[in-house]
Every structure is written in structure tokens, then in C-alpha cells.
């Protein structure tokens, strides 16, 4: 039985207790998602309130609730490949307004984490490059280093000239330092990245 059939079956029963579809089919994807977020995607009843207030809805290919729907129906790759997952700005407007208390922002976090783990190819390469460059600075220096982050990002995306006109002004106002400020106990931060690798 695939997740869609399963959803239809339990969906018609009308018993919300029974609507925990992971308990019925023990799907490893859903199990992992629940382990990360502590919530079952079946909880969402597709009212669309989240998407109505989502600031990036107009830029993304799928409405956020549609990504949840893909997962409910078992179209996991479709969910992970949707650029909505990476365009989500993490503003949590959706989570705050959901009548079912579904923390959609956290669901989106998990989609990014699970997509990366599965080496899903996304169109949002720039966003991925930004996050990687940002985290690398923390791993190497213990703190974010804006100059190093932008440099790494530019090399990753080959978007070399964007915003370079801002650099002289920021340097002269002391807002940008060429060298990173490293913390004393760098190793204590480096080891936290073990989980991610």
C-alpha cells in the first residue's frame, strides 16, 4: 500500500485519532520526519491559511501547504525538489497561524535537512551555497565572518561582481574585516558539526 491509498482509507474514517498515517504504514520517510520535527504531517488538513500569509509564496513554485500535501501523498521527491523548500524564509508566520498547530516552518527545516542528506538536486543552488558558506565560517572560526562568507559564496556561485561596490564603504566604516576573528576554543564548536557530516 502506498501512502496515498493509506491516507484515503484513514481519511474517510473521520476519526482524527486514526489519521496518524505513520502508525498505519510505518513509512521510513515519515518516521524520520517525525523524529526530526516531533509532528506528523497528517496533522495538516490543507486549509491553506499558511500559504495565504506566506511572504515568499509569490516567488515559489508551490504553495507551502502543497509541499505538505506531496508528503502526505507519498510524493517525497516532489516535495524535496520543490523550490519552495529553499525559498522558505523561516519567518514562522505559517506556524503561528495554523489552526491545527502544525509547525510548518519546522517542517520546511526538516525538508531542507532531509533533501540535503539524500543529495536531492535543487534549482535553488544559490540559497544552498549561501547556507554552506555561512556554516563553514562558523565551523572554521567559531563565528560568522561576513567577508569570508561572501568570498566563499562568490566562488561557489561564480557570481563574482554582485554587490562589490558596497565593499569600500563597508571597509572604511569598519563594518567588514578581511581577517576572521577566531574564538579561543574553536574545537568545541567544530565538533558540533559532527551530526551534519
Amino acid at each position, binding site marked *: 500500500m502506498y501512502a496515498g491509498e493509506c491516507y484515503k482509507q484513514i481519511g474517510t474514517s473521520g476519526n482524527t485519532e486514526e489519521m496518524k498515517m505513520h502508525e498505519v504504514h510505518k513509512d521510513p520517510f515519515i518516521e524520520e520526519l517525525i*523524529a*526530526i*520535527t*516531533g509532528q506528523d504531517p497528517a496533522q495538516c488538513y490543507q486549509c491553506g491559511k499558511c500559504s495565504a500569509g506566506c*511572504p*515568499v509564496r509569490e*516567488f515559489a513554485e508551490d504553495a507551502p501547504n502543497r509541499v505538505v500535501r506531496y508528503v502526505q501523498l507519498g510524493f517525497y521527491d516532489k516535495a524535496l525538489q520543490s523550490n519552495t523548500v529553499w*525559498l522558505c*524564509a*523561516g*519567518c*514562522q*508566520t505559517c*506556524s*503561528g497561524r495554523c489552526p491545527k498547530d502544525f*509547525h510548518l*516552518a519546522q517542517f520546511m*527545516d*526538516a525538508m*531542507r*535537512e532531509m533533501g*540535503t542528506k539524500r543529495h536531492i538536486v535543487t534549482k*535553488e543552488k*544559490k*540559497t544552498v*551555497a*549561501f*547556507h554552506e558558506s*555561512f*556554516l563553514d*565560517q*562558523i565551523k572554521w572560526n*567559531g*563565528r*560568522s*565572518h*561576513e567577508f569570508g*562568507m*561572501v568570498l566563499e*559564496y562568490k566562488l561557489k556561485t561564480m557570481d563574482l561582481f*554582485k*554587490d562589490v561596490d558596497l565593499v569600500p564603504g*563597508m571597509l572604511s*566604516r*569598519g*563594518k*567588514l*574585516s578581511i581577517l576572521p*576573528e577566531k*574564538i*579561543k*576554543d574553536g574545537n*568545541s*564548536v567544530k*565538533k*558540533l*558539526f*559532527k*551530526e*551534519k557530516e
Partner: protein
Amino acid sequence: MNLGYYPGCSLEGSAKEFNQSLKATLQALEVQLSEIDDWSCCGASSAHSANHLLALALPARNLLLAKKQGMSEIVAPCAACYNRLAVTRHELNNNETARKGVEDLLETPYSDGMQILNLVQLFHHIGLPVIKEKIKRQMSFLKPACYYGCLLVRPNNITGFDDAEHPTAMEQVVEITGTKAVDWNFKVECCGASHSIAHTKIVEKLSKNKLPPARCATRTSICGS
């Protein structure tokens, strides 16, 4: 009053003037800040996009350092840092699996006892009447529009210091300077900040959206935290 201080990376770099003006203000209010020694980055929006345990372990390291250094309250002026620290504290106190995972990564047991304050909370904590007494110049010539954005007020069950859709705590702070904050519809709307490097156009659009409504009500400044 002596408080722990978590400046966060931005206040040492591109938001340097925020750090300077905050320190000058608090000095005038006789509030001492002790910076957490050897603090590290909170991971901001990148860590929680990468790994749920990393996203909690990075702020948790700072919470543990603050505790070790004898602090019980820390001020985090950057909204993203405040949010990550508050979410982490909440998760570690309420989610045992997450707490165990983080303790394994940090190789240290976690114990709570830390209050995390954003700036709006800090000013209320100091006491608005106390601040009012020290104000030297009335600012009635300003018509500020208070901007909270996302991370001061959401998720409401964790930040919880004000209404998530229509907060007024910042207005109360600015109004002690003799000005009247104007009412507007965009105070908790997202500016898209996490995309400022990769999708400048989105950020431009989301931020520009807020300016015409601000201007048409003859607002002369937008204050945020």
C-alpha cells in the same frame, strides 16, 4: 544592574553602530553588560536549514558558557540570536530527545536557569518609568513606526512576551521619549533577511512593500530591534 551580553556576529560587523548605540544607551541607564567570554555564533537561519541538532547545539554552547560564568540573564540584541537562544532553551527544557542529542554533541549535561532578553524586553525589565526619568531630550518631532519583524514575536509559545500579530511592547518603549508611535499594518511582516545574499530581489521587494504604507502615514523613521 549587571547582565550577561551576547552581541552575536552581526553586531561586531555590519551592524556595528547598533552595538555602539546600545552600549551608550545602557551606560546612561547604568546597566552593566558582561560579554559572555568566548561566545560563538548561534547558527542563525543556516544551522536550522542544515541540521536540527546542530541548530540547537550552537546556541546551547553559549547558554552553557553563560551559566558557567555565573550569569542568569543574557541580553541578545539581534532578533535572530534572541530567537535561536530562546528556541534552544525551550527545546532543551521540553524535548528530552533533543536535549540528549545536544548533550552528546556538547559532551556536557545541560541545566536551565537562564533568562534570555531581547531589547524590548530589556527596556521593560529595566522599567519604563526609570528610563523616562533619565531622558534628556523629548523626541516628539519623530513619528516612528515600530517594526518587530518575525523573530522577536514568533513562535509565540516560545517568545511569548507580546501578541504575535499585533504587539505593542516596542511602542510603549518609544513613547516614553514623548513621541507617538503610529499604527501600521506591517510590523510583524517578514523582510526576507535570510535571502539577502542569494535573493536580493526578494528582499528588496519584501522590504519595499513596507515603505509606501509607512510613508503615507507621514512616518519619518522605522525602528526595529
